[in-house]
């Protein structure tokens, strides 16, 4: 019997949520079979089995948070097996983790846990935004020596890194104003937005929607005690339009291919005290207006209190962003990478000839041309101006 502990997943992370078990107790696994998928913040990692044998005991249920270094799975093996070094991952997993390694949480930057390095190296790493767990230490117990660190810096300078470019020189001290470092959500947003804009050729198309009928409908629903905000209507309209324009519910992949998705997870942009978060309404096409309304309301509330589950912030296929309640008649939203389009809705304007709202659609010109984008946005406009058509 051998116990396999959750290894250091390679990000300096201390824990991860069990997303999916690929085995169950009693199954026979071969070495390197994927046994479990674990999610940490924005990262999903598949763990391959280090042993061949029968799964004797599974220590965590799906959805539970597993701590690094604690028992994950017991295997009963026929022969005595040496515990492999915990750092070993499949080459493909290594590549994946390497690609996403720079996107880290505040915790992983500051809480190094097992990483050994001198205080000066840690300080420089912090200043440069380098995650020390990316560096292979050659000192005793895997300590990162000064030489290791300097070599890594040199490599970074030379290599063309696909990931978010981090500062390779320390910024000169600000002489006026105050200087801060980005951490946590702010950092994530910074990196995500940069990646989106640098990768996706954005363009934006706008339409003006007469929302008089929609407002009336909302008033009527209120009288019948259905308190529904704008957003559920926009989600509903988006889903129906996406079904007609499948290219807007798609992904462009890094190898140049693209995939059209057959499920509809709508991301809702929420403004939280820490910054912008996208909460995801899963299978939005299968939900009624009131279901959407209550789910959206709940997600938004929990987003603002930082209580979203990992599952609720990932895997959206299309995003709606609504700043109208705060202000702004028009915007050019940034696509929520790796999606291909995003719908922005804005403030209602009281005009002499009725109540109007601008809606904007930013789209990925690699896949979507202006004509398609225009047709799509017009379809949404039509749904919203005749809300009764949302029923059919």
């Amino acid at each position, binding site marked *: 019997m051998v116990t396999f502990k959750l290894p250091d997943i390679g990000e300096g992370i201390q824990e991860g949520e069990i997303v999916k078990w690929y085995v169950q107790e009693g199954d026979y696994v071969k070495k390197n079979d994927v046994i479990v998928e674990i999610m940490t913040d924005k990262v999903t990692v598949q763990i391959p089995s280090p042993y061949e044998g029968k799964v004797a005991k599974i220590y965590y249920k799906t959805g539970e948070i597993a701590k690094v270094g604690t028992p994950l799975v017991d295997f009963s093996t026929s022969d005595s097996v040496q515990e492999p070094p915990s750092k070993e991952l499949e080459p493909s997993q290594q590549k994946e983790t390497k690609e996403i390694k720079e996107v880290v949480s505040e915790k992983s930057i500051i809480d190094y846990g097992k990483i050994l390095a*001198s*205080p*000066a*190296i*840690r*300080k420089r790493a912090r200043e440069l935004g380098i995650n020390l767990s990316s560096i292979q230490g050659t*000192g005793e117990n895997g300590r990162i*020596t*000064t030489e290791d660190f300097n070599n890594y810096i040199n490599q970074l300078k030379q290599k063309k890194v696909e990931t978010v470019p981090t500062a390779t020189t320390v910024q000169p001290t600000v002489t006026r104003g105050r200087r801060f470092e980005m951490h946590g959500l702010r950092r994530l947003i910074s990196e995500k937005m940069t990646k989106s804009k640098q990768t996706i050729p954005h363009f934006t198309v706008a339409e003006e929607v007469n929302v008089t009928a929609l407002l009336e409908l909302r008033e009527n629903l209120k009288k019948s005690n259905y308190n529904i905000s704008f957003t559920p209507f926009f989600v509903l309209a988006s889903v129906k339009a996406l079904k007609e324009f499948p290219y807007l519910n798609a992904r462009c992949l890094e190898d140049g291919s693209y995939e059209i998705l057959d499920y509809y997870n709508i991301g809702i942009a929420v403004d939280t005290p820490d910054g912008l978060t996208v909460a995801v309404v899963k299978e939005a096409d299968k939900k009624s207006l009131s279901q959407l309304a209550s789910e959206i309301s709940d997600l938004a509330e929990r987003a603002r209190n930082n209580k979203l589950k990992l599952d609720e912030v990932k895997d959206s296929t299309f995003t709606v962003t609504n700043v109208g309640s705060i202000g702004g008649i028009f915007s050019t939203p940034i696509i929520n990478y790796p999606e291909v389009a995003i719908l922005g809705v804005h403030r209602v304007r009281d005009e002499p000839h009725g109540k109007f709202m601008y809606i904007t659609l930013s789209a990925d010109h690699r896949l979507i041309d202006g004509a398609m984008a225009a047709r799509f946005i017009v379809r949404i406009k039509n749904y919203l101006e005749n809300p009764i058509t949302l029923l059919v």
Partner: protein
Amino acid sequence: MRQLNMVQALNEALDIILGSDPYSLLLGEDIGRDGGVFRVTDGLLQKYGKERVIDTPLNELGIVGTAIGMAAYGLRPIAEIQFQDFIFPAFDQIVNQAAKIRYRSGGKFNAPVIIRTPYGGGIRGGLYHSQSGESYFVHTAGLYVLTPSNPYDAKGLLLAAHKLNDPVIFLEPKRLYRSVKSDVPEGEYNIPIGKAKKLREGEEITIITYGSMVPTVLNVVDRNKLDADVIDLITLLPMDVDTIISSVKKTGRVVIVHEAPRTLGLGAEISALISERAIEYLYAPILRVTGFDTPFPYANEEHYLPDEERIMKYVKKSLEY
């Protein structure tokens, strides 16, 4: 300029003091007729008479205790304890009387007394002629603790100590008494108290030392062409923390070298000071090369004292960390 060894330099300083300050005097065992067992007070009895140069009975408590009384009532005594190893009967007087009389009397009394004593090993002195007990004194607020590493500093430091109005423990590294000569100016000059000296400048590593280890450290640096800051503390209490910290911030690596035993030797205090003020500048742990936590042996003295090889080993360890 003429070159003097440390004994001659100290002798000159005492001569100047006795000659210029009519209330100064010396007291200790064998310092008058015999000129001191190391000859530091040679010739002074003949020159100044037995009221100013006193051969005392064999009692360290009495030497230091009476010296404090003299100092409190307007004299400037310089007491000698023949070997630092013998200072302990006077420890009560030093710690409870000299170091505290100003504080407990609200300044009505003070004790401007200098206690000179040879310390450290390297002369085949064994357990009781080789001790380095500076830690006992640095731990006592109210004292100054000074230790020169060369003749030039020795004379200037003693002259400066004479001007202080508080008690001074003046530690003379006995194995350097005659082994080093340096240019020593005639007449009066001062070495600033509380200020360390940088004897070598470099970028890669800081080596902090004092007293008898200074020449050994300099040899290590020079022979191996190390790119190092070498700091001679000179004043152990109050230590020049600013010079230490600015050097550490520059190099990021520190080795402390002292002959005194490791545990609670000054290396420990210096390590704490550095970690409080400059920890993020450190590329390597603060390392100490010290005497053993044992009594001082007679045979094997050369293995006990930190030698060039041992120092270099730790320097390397720090540089390669």
